[in-house]
C-alpha cells in the first residue's frame, strides 16, 4: 500500500502535532491549547486521507463520518459533567470497536499477510474487542444500568481458558490463507465475551482504573492496526496513547493503593467488603444551625467534597457557602482525594464548573498535615476516602489506601443522605468518632440551610 508523498508528509506532521498537543495537555496553563492543536491535526489527518489514491466507497465513508461524528458531538455537548467518566468510557469503547472492525475487514478480505503482521492483526483484534465490550460494561455500571458486580464461579479459571481459547482460534485464523466466515465470527464473539467477563466482577470504586487501562488497550490496538495498514501516524498515535495510558493507570492505581493485578484478579465485591472489624459506637446528629455556627466562628474550614456532592448538584451551593464564610474572615480550602469523584481529577473538574478557582483546591499530600489545625472538616458526599480504618484495620479491604485525615480536625461535620455504607459498601469508622457529627439530608438542601443560618448570624 503506498501513499502519495503529500499524504505521507501530512501524516508525519499530524503525528508531531499529536505529541506536542499531548505534552501541552499535561500542564493546566497550556492544556486548552493542546486539545485544540490535536483537534486541528485530527481534521487534517481525516481530510488528507481522502487523497489516498484508488480509494473507493467514498460516499459510504462520508456518510459514516457524518453520522458517527454527529451523534458523538451531540452527546458530548449535552452530557452532564458528573457523567463524564462513563462518556469517556463509551468513546474509548468505540475506538476499540473501530480497531476490531478494521481487523475484521482484513480477515474477511482474506488477504494473506506475513507472520508478524498476522500476529499483530490478531492481537489488535483481541485487544480492540476487549476494549469495546469492557468499556460497554464499564459504561453500564457507571450509568447505573448494571447495579451488581457479577462474579462467575471460578472466575479466574474461566478468564484464563477464555483467553487461551480466544488466542488459539485467533492465531489459527490469522495464519490461515482464507479463514472461514464461521471461525472469524466465533473469534470475535469470544474476544468480545472476554472483555465483558473481565470487567463484570469489578466494582464501581475500581472503575476509573479500569477505564484508564482500557483506554491504554485501545491505544495499543490502534497502534497494531497501524502496523497492519502500514500507516505510521496510526502507529505513533496509538502506541503513545498506549504507553501514556499505562502510566496514567499506574498513577491512579498507586493513588488508590490497589495494585493493578488485585483490581483485575481480586476485585472488591460485596463479599470482600464484609471483611474488617465491626465498628462500635453511635452516630451523633447535629442541626444545620450548629453546623453554621461552628464554621462561621471557626478560623479554618476544610471542605472534603465527594461524588455524592456532585450527584446532588450541590457544588454551586457549596461554593456559595465557602464565599460567604470567607467574607466573614474564615479561611476555607477544598481537599481533594486523588480518586474523589469517579476518576482522578474528576472532582477538580466538577468544582471548576462551579467556579471554584483552582488555587483553593489542594491535593492529599498538600493538605493532609493541615487538618490538625482546622476547626472544622466538612465532609460532603465523600465516604471511603476519609475512612480511618484504611490506616488502622488490617482486615479491611481498603487498608493501606491513602486517606484524607479529616478525623484529625477539631470538629468533623459529615453531610450525608442516610445511614448507609459508601460506594464500596465498607462501614466508615469516622462517623462513629467523638469529634464527628452527622448532618443528615441531601447535600443541596443541607448546605442551603447552612447558608441561611450563616446569613442570619451575620445580621
Amino acid at each position, binding site marked *: 500500500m503506498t501513499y502519495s508523498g503529500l499524504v505521507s508528509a501530512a501524516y508525519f506532521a499530524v503525528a508531531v502535532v499529536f505529541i506536542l498537543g*499531548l505534552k501541552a495537555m*499535561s500542564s493546566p496553563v497550556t492544556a486548552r491549547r493542546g486539545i485544540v492543536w490535536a483537534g486541528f491535526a485530527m481534521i487534517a489527518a481525516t481530510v488528507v486521507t481522502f487523497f489516498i489514491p484508488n480509494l473507493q466507497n467514498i460516499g459510504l465513508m462520508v456518510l459514516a*463520518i457524518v453520522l458517527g461524528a454527529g451523534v*458523538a458531538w451531540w452527546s458530548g455537548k449535552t452530557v452532564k459533567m458528573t457523567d463524564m467518566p462513563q462518556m469517556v468510557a463509551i468513546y*474509548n469503547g468505540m475506538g476499540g470497536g*473501530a480497531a476490531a472492525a*478494521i481487523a475484521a475487514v482484513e480477515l474477511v478480505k482474506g488477504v494473506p499477510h506475513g507472520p508478524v503482521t498476522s500476529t499483530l492483526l490478531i492481537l489488535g483484534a483481541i485487544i480492540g474487542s476487549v476494549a469495546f465490550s469492557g468499556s460497554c460494561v464499564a459504561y453500564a455500571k457507571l450509568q447505573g444500568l448494571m447495579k451488581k458486580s457479577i462474579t462467575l464461579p471460578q472466575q479466574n479459571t474461566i478468564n484464563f481458558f477464555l483467553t487461551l481459547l480466544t488466542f488459539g482460534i485467533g492465531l489459527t485464523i490469522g495464519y490461515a490463507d482464507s479463514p472461514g466466515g464461521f471461525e472469524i465470527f466465533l473469534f470475535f464473539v469470544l474476544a468480545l465475551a472476554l472483555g465483558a467477563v473481565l470487567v463484570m466482577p469489578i466494582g464501581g470504586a475500581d472503575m476509573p482504573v479500569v477505564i484508564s487501562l482500557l483506554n491504554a488497550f485501545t491505544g495499543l490496538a490502534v497502534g497494531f492496526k497501524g502496523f497492519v495498514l502500514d500507516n505510521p501516524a496510526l502507529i505513533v498515535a496509538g502506541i503513545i496513547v498506549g504507553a501514556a495510558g499505562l502510566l496514567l493507570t499506574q498513577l491512579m492505581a498507586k*493513588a488508590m493503593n490497589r495494585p493493578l493485578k488485585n483490581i483485575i484478579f481480586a476485585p472488591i465485591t460485596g463479599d470482600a467488603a464484609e471483611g474488617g472489624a465491626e465498628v462500635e459506637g453511635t452516630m451523633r446528629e447535629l442541626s444545620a444551625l450548629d453546623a453554621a455556627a461552628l464554621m462561621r466562628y471557626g478560623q479554618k474550614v476544610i471542605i472534603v467534597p465527594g461524588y455524592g456532592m456532585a450527584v446532588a448538584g450541590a457544588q454551586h451551593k457549596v461554593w456559595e457557602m465557602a464565599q460567604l464564610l470567607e467574607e466573614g474572615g474564615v479561611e476555607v480550602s477544598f481537599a481533594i482525594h486523588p480518586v474523589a469523584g469517579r476518576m482522578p481529577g474528576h472532582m477538580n473538574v466538577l468544582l471548576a464548573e462551579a467556579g471554584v478557582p483552582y488555587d483553593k483546591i489542594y491535593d492529599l499530600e498538600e493538605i493532609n498535615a493541615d487538618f490538625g489545625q482546622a476547626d472544622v472538616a466538612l465532609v460532603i458526599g465523600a465516604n471511603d476516602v476519609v475512612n480511618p480504618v484504611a490506616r488502622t484495620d488490617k482486615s479491611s479491604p481498603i487498608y493501606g489506601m491513602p486517606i484524607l485525615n479529616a478525623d484529625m480536625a477539631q470538629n468533623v461535620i459529615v453531610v450525608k443522605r442516610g445511614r448507609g455504607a459508601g460506594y464500596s459498601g465498607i462501614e466508615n469508622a469516622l462517623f462513629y468518632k467523638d469529634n464527628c457529627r452527622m448532618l443528615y439530608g441531601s447535600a443541596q438542601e443541607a448546605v442551603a440551610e447552612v447558608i441561611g443560618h450563616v446569613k442570619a448570624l451575620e445580621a
Partner: protein
Amino acid sequence: MEGFTALYIFMLAAFTGYEVISRVPVILHTPLMSGSNFIHGVVLIGGMVALGKADPDEPLQLLIGFIAVFLGAANAAGGYVVTERMLGMFKTGDRKQGGAQ
C-alpha cells in the same frame, strides 16, 4: 513495514508517550485520559483506509468497514468535545497547582 523499523518506531513512541505525561498534576488526570482517548480516535483514518479498499461488491466488507469508520469518527468527535469542555472550565488562579506525583 520492515520488522525492525517497526520495532524501533514502537519503542520510540512508547518512551515518548511515557515521558510526555510523566509529570502531569493530579488535577489533569481526567482531562488527560479523555485527551489521550481523543488521540487514539485517529483510528478513524485506519477505518477509512479499510473501507476505501473494501470490495464494493461485497456487502459484508462494506458493512464492517462502515462500522469501523462510524465508530472511529464517534471516538474522535466525542473525545474532542468532552475534553475541550473539561479543559475550558479551568480558570487560572494565582497559585500554581503543583502536586505532580
